[in-house]
């Protein structure tokens, strides 16, 4: 009689591995092809952003904020400034609110396009990767028109946005959104008709509804497990209450369900962005409180007061009153929020980033344990982590 022994082999995946979408290391104990235990090891991209933010003024901090979830920088700025604005009890003008929503939704589309391209590329479907990134390029062009930067825009300000949208933005954004409708359909056809894509995602990396909730997963991961949880709907912020959209969910909880949720979300984001573009209110794009907002450039030429305000704001910055604040927002990956503590000085005492990728990654072992090794790559792609967000 042959004696069977149960032996496990420990395999190290990452930190340099194309399937981990960044610097992530997984220690996998495998028995044959089956993963018995998965231990994520984090911190390879830890840059101490939360500590750095304590040494900078609020205006300077936006530079760091953009670099956390760098593929969804507009949403990152939205979360940061909403929290600062709650501390300062600032009311944002309607035009600025709509511009913010518009850019956040365009950014969500671009972020989901990265997911789509990367997830498809992991399964060697490189055509979808090329198409998705070509479309994302059009968002980057829009971003450049608006803020001068393709990524890391630094466009939002406390109380509004830096400058109004330029004229050439409107036709470009409209044509991007017009084309997007049939582009999304095309991607869906390309992938849904692809047997490899379906077989490698359906029933793979399954996360039950209970596990998703208890492990703190949010965003498309939670909605892909059948929970209709969208902060934009449940706790509307920054003007989202004025827009009509649906919250797509899928009950299966597998990688395919997360893909379906994101595809539908792109359509909903397009709907919000079109409505914002259509009914953009007039008026100023930032509060006229000179203690918070920089004076317009043209005033600097003939107003001494404007020069003083400019100098004070740039060198010293504003002083939010003492206290703490947290505003939940729905980023492309889930709930993003800034817990900011102020002591009344020009720099925050503590900034903590509620990072959706960090919590979603916590659910990874529950998805891959007991499943073949090859599913790990699919699972990582399906939760769409950004390591800058995990490690901060």
């Amino acid at each position, binding site marked *: 009689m042959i004696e069977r022994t149960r032996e496990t082999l420990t395999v190290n995946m990452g930190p340099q591995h194309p399937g981990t979408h960044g610097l992530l290391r997984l220690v996998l104990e495998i028995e044959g092809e089956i993963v018995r235990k998965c231990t994520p090891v*984090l*911190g390879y991209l*830890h840059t*101490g952003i*939360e*500590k*750095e933010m*304590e*040494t*900078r*003024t609020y205006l*300077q901090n936006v530079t760091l904020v953009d670099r956390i979830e760098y593929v969804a920088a507009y949403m990152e700025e939205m979360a940061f400034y909403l929290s600062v604005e*709650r501390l300062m009890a600032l009311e944002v003008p309607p035009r600025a609110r709509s511009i913010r929503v518009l850019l956040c939704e365009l950014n969500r589309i671009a972020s989901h396009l990265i997911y789509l391209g990367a997830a498809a590329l992991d399964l060697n479907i490189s055509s979808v990767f090329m198409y998705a990134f070509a479309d994302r390029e059009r968002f980057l062009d829009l971003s450049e028109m608006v803020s001068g930067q393709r990524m890391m825009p630094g466009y939002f300000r406390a109380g509004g946005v830096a400058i109004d949208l330029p004229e050439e933005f409107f036709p470009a954004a409209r044509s991007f959104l017009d084309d997007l409708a049939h582009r999304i359909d095309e991607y869906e056809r390309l992938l849904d008709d692809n047997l490899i894509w379906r077989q490698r995602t359906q029933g793979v990396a399954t996360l039950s509804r209970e596990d*998703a*909730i*208890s*492990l*703190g997963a*949010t965003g498309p991961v*939670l909605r892909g497990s059948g*929970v*209709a*949880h969208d902060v934009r709907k*449940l*706790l509307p912020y920054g003007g989202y209450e004025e827009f009509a959209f649906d919250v797509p969910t899928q009950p299966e909880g597998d990688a395919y369900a997360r893909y379906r949720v994101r595809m539908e979300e792109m359509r909903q984001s397009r709907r919000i962005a079109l409505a914002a573009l259509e009914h953009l209110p007039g008026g100023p794009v930032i509060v006229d409180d000179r203690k918070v907002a920089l004076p317009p450039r043209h005033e600097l030429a003939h107003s001494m007061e404007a020069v003083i305000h400019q*100098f*004070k704001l740039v*060198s*010293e910055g504003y*002083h939010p009153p*003492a*206290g*703490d*604040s*947290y505003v*939940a927002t729905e980023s492309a990956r889930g*709930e993003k*929020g800034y*817990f900011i*503590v102020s*002591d*009344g*000085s*020009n*720099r925050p*005492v*503590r900034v*903590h980033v*509620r990072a959706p990728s*960090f*919590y979603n990654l*916590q659910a990874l072992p529950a998805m891959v344990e007991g499943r073949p090794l090859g599913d790990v790559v699919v699972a990582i792609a399906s939760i769409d982590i950004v390591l800058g967000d995990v*490690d*901060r």
Partner: protein
Amino acid sequence: MEQGPLLDRLRPYVPWGLAIPKDEGGRPTLLVTPGALLEVLEAARTHLALDALVDLTCWDRAPASPRFEAVYLLGQAGGSDRLTVKVQIEGDQPRLPSSVGVYPGAAWPEREVYDMFGVVFEGHPDLRRILMPDDWEGYPLRRDFPLTEEAVEFKGHTPKVPSEIIPFFRPHSPSGSGGDPPPVPG
């Protein structure tokens, strides 16, 4: 959600003397003692249906006492109820009971708070550093942990402190002149 109802619904289940409701800009907040923490979390989970730990973090209140304040943000999957639970802990080696038994999702954030502030969560199944290297000394997000350039061994180069570059202004300082540096606990 309203400030009143959520906290009122919780009132019968927790020792109110150990939990102080606070009004913080419409956010329902409870300040609890470390001993009552688990009881409050469990009551919130069972009786308020707050089934998700949205966030768990901490901050250093130095030089105030008690020195650390841990902040638990509880939420509801598919619902809009939110409850902030704060607990203040004293000392250089602060300790708190681990909430992993109530919220399994607390495993990683508790490791992060331990990593950054040195708060020991008793009963945590796997309390190790998570973001910093395993052999790191000190707790980086404490206020007395200096933020300096990495010590690179160049001759005649002293690492600079980035916080020296930006002048610190006292709360509502009347002029643009620089004030005292931020307080560093002894």
